[in-house]
């Protein structure tokens, strides 16, 4: 079997926002085709870790390479699709149509001066058709339900055909039915197109059903490995007192 390409390699990473470190001494590698569930309590540094990987927060120590390139020299942001946490993103009064919003995902592939042409808008139409949201094209974001908005943002994250998809608590605004169909969609992208996925989630009950690996953060990296490894780990059983491990492993098996 061919060795999978390393998509992200992190060594000795620490980062924070001025007063103290929110993540400490984190090291891991993510390979092409991985589907990693990133879990941990509030304030564990999950969102900060993702922001550091996206270049939004500078690391205080350590190294990161994305697709084999040190992050300081990485320019090919079109390889990474990002779906932010719904609650702290976008201006709801903004009059942009769904089509305009999705097209913003293509800017990562454009150099200065950025512009979009007809072939770009064809890509937008294509991704809308794939996600079944063509009928929303002319609506503004404030006219959509939480589930529809999430699909639009997923389309924006996917329109540039990324190889890595980073999702920050994507199920927060969704009802159980929309949540299930959203998870299925992400799973099929991972299965069929080999898109590498990192998903921050508090939905630990469901994460084991979809993700291949679990990354558990609590300022430091507590666990990173497959679900089988997690479920068989006595150390994790000891760490979580058995309960948390059981919740994840129960749904995984």
């Amino acid at each position, binding site marked *: 079997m061919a060795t999978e390409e390393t998509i992200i390699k992190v060594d000795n990473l620490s980062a924070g926002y001025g007063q103290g470190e929110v993540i400490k001494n984190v090291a891991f590698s993510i390979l092409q085709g991985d589907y990693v569930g990133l879990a941990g309590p509030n304030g564990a540094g999950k969102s900060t870790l993702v922001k550091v990987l996206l270049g939004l927060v500078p690391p205080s120590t350590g190294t990161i390479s994305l697709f084999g390139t040190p992050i300081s020299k990485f320019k090919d942001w079109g390889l990474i699709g990002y779906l932010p946490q719904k609650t702290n*993103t*976008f*201006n709801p009064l903004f009059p942009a*149509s769904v089509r305009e919003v999705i097209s913003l995902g293509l800017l990562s592939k454009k150099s200065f*001066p950025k512009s979009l042409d007809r072939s770009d808008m064809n890509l937008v139409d294509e991704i809308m058709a794939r996600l079944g949201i063509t009928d929303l094209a002319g609506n*503004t974001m404030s006219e959509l339900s939480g589930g529809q908005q999430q699909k639009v943002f997923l389309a924006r994250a996917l329109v540039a055909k990324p190889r890595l998809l980073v999702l920050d608590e994507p199920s927060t605004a969704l009802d159980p039915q929309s949540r299930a169909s959203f998870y299925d969609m992400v799973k099929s992208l991972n299965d069929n197109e080999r898109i590498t996925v990192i998903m921050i989630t508090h939905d630990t009950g469901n994460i084991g059903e979809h993700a291949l690996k679990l990354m558990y953060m609590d300022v430091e990296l507590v666990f990173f490995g497959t679900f089988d490894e997690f479920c068989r780990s006595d150390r994790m059983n000891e760490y979580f007192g058995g309960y948390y491990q059981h919740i994840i492993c129960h749904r995984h098996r």
Partner: protein
Amino acid sequence: MLAFLNLSFVQRAFVAGSFIAALCAVLGLFLVLRRMSMIGDGLSHVSFGAIALGLLFGVYPYYAAVPIVILASFMILAITEKAKLFGDAAIGIVSAVGISMGVVLASISGGFNVDLMSYLFGNILTISRMELIISIALSILVFVVVFIFYYDLFSSTFDPEYANTTGISTDLVNRILAVLTSIVVVLSVKMVGVMLVSALLILPAVTSLTLVKGFRSAMIVSVALAVASVVLGITASYFLDLPSGATIVLFNAAFFGLAILEKGLTYKK
């Protein structure tokens, strides 16, 4: 009745006014959507101080005002970012310093003279040929920069964090927007005066946001309403002998009122 269109000062007013109003409409849309509507008010107060400084030292007011107002806009950004104050508080601080500076300088130079007063309320009908050329040149410059950075401005206004992940530097975009707004504010002071500049930035933008969907459509409607207000305002002020700046703003306000009415009626249907 149309004979007044042959008057050169009226022609100058129409041309300069339309350019400036269109610029305000475009930039105003970005500012309103970024919840920075009042930056126009703050910077116009600074321009009052800067113009007073220019008049005191015999420097052409535009030359004194543009760099000082750009500097003030950077200070607003710095206070917001570094001192972690809310944008409106930062605007309030810079605005108060600007107007205080103007009053003190006016007092030093022997009180408010006619020139300085004319900048308080503006008068587009007195715009000189030189001012017309400067207005057109700066307007074209601002339009070109907006055109080049259109998608950067659009994306960073809609969702700044996401824009950063696509390789757009929102810090740079914020600075560009601050410079453009400063230039437009200084140009607008001649048209409507220090007191009413923010109206030119806010009213066409909010009217278009009330009326249409789609960012590009909102921009087009905003520009159309702003230019229409200038044409109607200057015409009305000429024939009815009204102050031109205030009349232009009142036409903008009337459009906004009609838009709200139209939206209310649409809701009821």
